[in-house]
Every structure is written in C-alpha cells, then in structure tokens.
C-alpha cells in the first residue's frame, strides 16, 4: 500500500531552512505581483476568465466528440494517434514507438503528464536515455527529485543548490554560482543530445480539434529543438487538453503566461501540425483517471485546468511549504483537488493543507472553484474514514457538545474558570500544537452569555 503523505511534517522541514523558505515565498509572490500588473492592463480580464471557463466547460461536456474530431484531423495531417487508458499503457506505447524507430535517446521538453505517468524511470529501466531539456526540469532530473512546481520546477532551489548539482553531475565549477554561467553550462551540455537523439518529446498546452494541431507554449526554445532536430516527434497529451477551434487558442494564450509568470505571452507559442517530410509524428492521448474524474459531480471542474500554476504562486500555504511537501506530481491548490482522485488514502492529508482562503479560486484563469472542491474533498475523506483518529474523535465530541446548549454551557463556563488558574506548563507543552509558537488567548471572567444575563433582562 502507498505511504500516506504527511504534508504538515514535510512542511515543517521546509520551514526550518530559512533562506530557502524566504526566497521561495518571495519569488512566487513576485510572480503573483507580476500577474496582477498584467491583469491590470486588460480591462476584459474577468470576461476572459468567464469565456475561457465556458469554452472548457463546453468541451468537457462534449469531450468524446472533440477528441474524435481531433483524432480525425491529426491523422489527416499525417500524424499517428494512440489512445492510452492509463499511465502504464502510455509508457508502453511510448516505448513501442521508440523501439520501432530504433531510437535509444529521447530529448524531451516539459510535460507534467509524463511525470504523472512516471515515464522517465520506466524508459530508463528499459535502456532508453531520457534527457529533460527544460532548465528547471533538467536541474530536478540531475538532482533525482520530481519538479516542485508545474511551471517553475526547481523554484525551491537557490542558485547555490543548482551550482552544487551541476558541479556534481555535469562538471561545472563548484565555486561559480552565477546564473548566466549555470544556464549557459546546461545549454552546452544539452546541445549534443539534441543532435544525436533519435526522438523528441513534447507535451501540449492545447490540442485543437478543428485543425488536429498541438499548441505548445514555452520560454526556452527547447520544445522546438526537441521536435525539429530528431526525426521522430512524440507528443503526450492529456485528453482534457482538447479545445474545439483554433480561434479559442487566443483566449487561453492571452491568459496562460500572464497567469503563470506575469508575462504577456510565452517566448514561443508553437503550433505543430504535421511531420516534416521523412519524419514521423505520434500523438498519445492519455486518460489516466480523467474520464473517472469527469464523472465526479463535485470534482469534474478541475479538468478545466490549463496548468498555469497561478494558484500555486498565490497560495500562502504552498509558498511556505514547497511543492515537494505534497509528495505528488501536482502540488499546491490544484494538486490538492487532483491528487485525492488518484489515491485517496495516500493523498488524504492534502485537502487539509489549506486554510480555504480562496485566493486560488480568485486567480484561476478558467474559474475552477478550487477552495470549494477542497472543502468537498474533506467531506469525502471523512466519509471514507481517512481522517486521523484524533481528529475524528475530536470532531465527534465537539459536534455533540455544540449540539446541546447544556453541554456547551458546562464546557465554556467551566473552561474559563479553570483556564485562568492553569500554570503555564499545562498550556505550553508538546501536546498543545496551538501553544508551540503562539500564546493562548486569556480566559475572560465570564462568557458573553453570562454577561448578557447579568446586564440585560431577557424575556424568559
């Protein structure tokens, strides 16, 4: 059985590394600030959100039709289309394509889906050399860690950390942590792989049904190199990425990078239509739990996600706990509502890694009601007995007391008297999580109700 993720425990470790924590919080808050300034420039921003949401909602409620339309058009363009029910099928299909082409090196650009499918270890164990070419993903690959953020995968690392990883793994000067030096070193290190790779892989931000094309938004140019140098292009695409028409791309492209990084648009917005002469293009459409989620009345809205990461950047909990503390491919608010659908037991603590403050919902460019779904997941987790016993018992007891005026009065009126007399050591010990870093509120002499009875003359 999978090990349960203990978000609180992992977060406490993250918080102890002060420099990292401070940088992480500040860097992501800075992205949120840039996003706000971009949003300010577009008077129609809230309309765009509504429109984007409506397009996604329409597509998801006609998903089968649009997927088939996409498939037809992609095939007509000259691509080959594969369908993968789950991660295992996806990985097997990709391996089969590579083996058929005799490709032993794969250069790939960023794709959360391939992380979700744990494709890299699968291929590596079968003799395929896999090279992440996105800088952040590459840092994480070299360090043996998953990405901690869906847009900026190594955002939890300081440049000193990157310098250490690069010195260890690609032979850079350990004393040099200049960002330009590090970026250039990675670039030089990666180039030969592009030239000799038998295959290149991308994900897709959008799959346009009407044209059978894939749209990939990147900032580093690595996706285009991955597609244009090798003779084989494999694209892994989650089925929720399909949108009906080419004119819809504009709606999303206007929002994607503004939401993600606070830039008006990504450096590159590439449309991949068909293989160049003498090359092949394979598209793997992946379900891996998406259809099941589409059938969940309270949670299907999460499939609208365009993976911009704005919810993570704005989330005060994410910024102070780091993506790795969620123990999953998808972290932050969007992860909190996606992960339990994959494994309720393993990810049962994640919906509680939230104050339900709702900032995520307010920044979401496709209007996913993230914090409301977090609330709903909590109900599901409690119903399926996945809450810690302490919490279950505490809530059952609280529920009983608060349902009874008599028990409630006995508890509140007595608590105040006894609290006031308690020595400090009783309140401040390891068992009282409140008191570890906070003072406990002082106990008043009487409750409001007692004051009221003494000072007003209520009708009996």
């Amino acid at each position: 059985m999978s090990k349960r993720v203990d978000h609180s425990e992992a977060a406490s470790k993250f918080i102890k590394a002060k420099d990292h924590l401070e940088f992480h919080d500040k860097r992501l808050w800075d992205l949120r600030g840039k996003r706000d300034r971009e949003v300010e420039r577009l008077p129609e921003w809230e309309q765009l959100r509504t429109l984007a949401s409506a397009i996604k909602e329409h597509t998801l409620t006609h998903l089968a039709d649009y997927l088939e339309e996409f498939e037809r058009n992609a095939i007509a363009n000259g691509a080959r289309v594969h369908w993968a029910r789950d991660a295992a099928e996806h990985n097997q299909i990709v391996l089969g394509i590579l083996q058929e082409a005799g490709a032993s090196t794969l250069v790939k650009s960023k794709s959360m889906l391939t992380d979700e499918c744990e494709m890299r270890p699968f291929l590596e164990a079968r003799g395929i050399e896999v090279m992440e070419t996105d800088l952040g993903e590459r840092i994480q690959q070299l360090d043996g860690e998953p990405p901690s953020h869906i847009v900026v995968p190594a955002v939890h690392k300081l440049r000193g950390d990157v310098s250490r990883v690069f010195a260890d793994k690609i032979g850079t000067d350990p004393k040099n942590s200049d960002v330009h030096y590090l970026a250039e070193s990675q670039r030089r290190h990666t180039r030969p792989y592009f030239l000799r790779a038998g295959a290149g892989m991308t994900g897709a931000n959008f799959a346009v049904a009407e044209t059978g094309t894939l749209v990939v938004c990147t900032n580093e140019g690595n996706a285009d190199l991955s597609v244009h140098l090798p003779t084989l292009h494999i694209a892994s695409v989650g089925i929720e990425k399909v949108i009906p028409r080419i004119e819809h791309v504009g709606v999303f492209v206007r929002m994607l990078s503004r939401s993600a990084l606070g830039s008006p648009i990504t450096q590159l917005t590439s449309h991949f239509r068909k293989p160049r002469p003498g090359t092949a293009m394979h598209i793997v459409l992946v379900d891996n739990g998406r259809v099941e989620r589409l059938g969940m009345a309270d949670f299907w809205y999460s499939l609208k996600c365009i993976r911009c990461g704005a919810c993570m950047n704005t989330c005060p909990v994410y910024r102070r706990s780091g993506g790795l503390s969620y123990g999953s491919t998808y972290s932050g608010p969007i992860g909190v509502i996606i992960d339990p659908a994959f494994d309720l037991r393993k990810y049962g603590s994640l919906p509680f890694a939230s104050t339900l403050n709702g900032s995520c919902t307010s920044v979401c460019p496709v209007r996913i009601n993230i914090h409301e779904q977090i609330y709903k997941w909590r109900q599901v987790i409690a119903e399926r007995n996945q809450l810690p016993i302490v919490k279950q018992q505490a809530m059952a007891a609280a529920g009983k007391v608060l349902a009874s005026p008599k028990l409630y009065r006995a508890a509140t009126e007595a608590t105040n008297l006894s609290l006031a007399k308690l020595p400090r050591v009783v309140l401040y010990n390891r068992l009282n999580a409140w008191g570890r870093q906070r003072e406990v509120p002082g106990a008043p002499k009487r409750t409001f109700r007692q004051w009221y009875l003494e000072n007003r003359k209520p009708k009996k």
Partner: protein
Amino acid sequence: MKAALFIPCYVDALFPEVGIATLELLERLGVKVDYPLDQTCCGQPMANSGCEKDAAGAEALFVKNFAGYDYVVTPSGSCTHHVRENLTAIPQTARVLKVRRSVYELVEFLHDVLAVREFPWAEFRHAVGLHNGCASLRALRTASASEIREPPFSKPMALLSKVKGIRFVAPQRPDECCGFGGTFSVFEEPVSAKMGYDKVSDHAGAGAEYIVSGDMSCLMHQKGCAERMGLPVRFIHIAQVLNGARK
C-alpha cells in the same frame, strides 16, 4: 425589523467584549435585537474539518434558535459564510433555507442593511492595519480582492473611515491569509504559525499600532503570534472600534 444576535462560540467563550460591543453598537443604532439564550455554534468547525455529519446537531440547533427572525447579525465573517454556503448537514427545508438567507455579518449589516454612514461617538487615535478575514473578503465580498480585476471598494474601510482620529497603514500583502484556518491552525501548525508571523510582521512593518478585523478568530491567532514574537502591535474587533472603544 425582527433581529437576533448570533454570538459565535469562540466569541462567547473567549472574547465576550466583542459580543458586548456588537450588542451595544446595534442598540445605539436603534436596532432591537434578541439574543436567543440556547445558541452555541453554526457548525463550521466540524464541517470545515470534513465532518459535516458531526455538524448536523449544531446546525439544527442554530436553525431552531434563529428561525423566527428577519435578520440574524453576527460579528464573524466565517460563520456567516458557513451558514450561507455550507449549512447543509441537515435537510434543506424552507425553514432552514430562510434562516440561511437571514444571516448577516456585522459589517454587511451596518453597511448594506442599515446603511450607517456616521459613528459620531467613535474615536480611535491610532495607526490601524485592516485585516479582512478571507471569508469576508472573498466569499461575502465585503471588499475588493487584489486577485480580481474590479473597482476598489471596502465596506469595513468605509465604516472605519468615519471614526475620528483613525489612521490607516498599508501592509504589503493586505489580502494574504493570516493562517488561522480553524483546525488548520493546529493540524498544520508549522505553516499556520509561519503565516501568522508573516502577517503580523507585515502590519507591524507598515507601522500598525492596532490590527482591526471583523473576524476575531483571525485576530486570536495573530495575537497569539504577535505576543510570542514580542511585537507591540495590538488587536481589536471592528465592532469595538465602531462602538467607541478608544483603545
């Protein structure tokens, strides 16, 4: 107008002065307000923890206490939000739905229902940082939120700006959650405390002598943080300031 006062459990037990200020303020404004004596809680603590079923008893009692009123006024944004959006552990009869529609957070009630624009008795000669609880800000929409592209507005600020002598400071992240979050404060203690420390530091750094809020639960958490940190900043509920508290 038939109005009742709902004093949330934690205000009743830990901050009776906030309940008193709320009652006195409503009385000053000429609202005859009942205080049903058998009230306890709206059910939020259990429901927010996922245990909606355990909230059913408290919710039923809430409805029983407040069924006969046009307005139920409470000095708590998060309780108002719970009743309005999430009081669903019990069958949704017409009576239940009516109660759910009748509940108003104090600032909303003053600003929207009574349309109070003057508090001649109020004077608060301090530098104030305003803290909007997240439920008030993003669910009740008592103020514009920095995430949303909309014209700026703030009902609590509109009310407080009528208080003589008050000065406002501008924290760098005014809309950032303070990290209370109900049981989050205990089960996610490390992150909760860090958020609280950051929140009070932000206000103190902006020069706040007081942090004022419509949500005492946020303030309880922030006060606990500030006291442990040794920060001189103090905390007061908006009802107290509007009712004429000088400090």
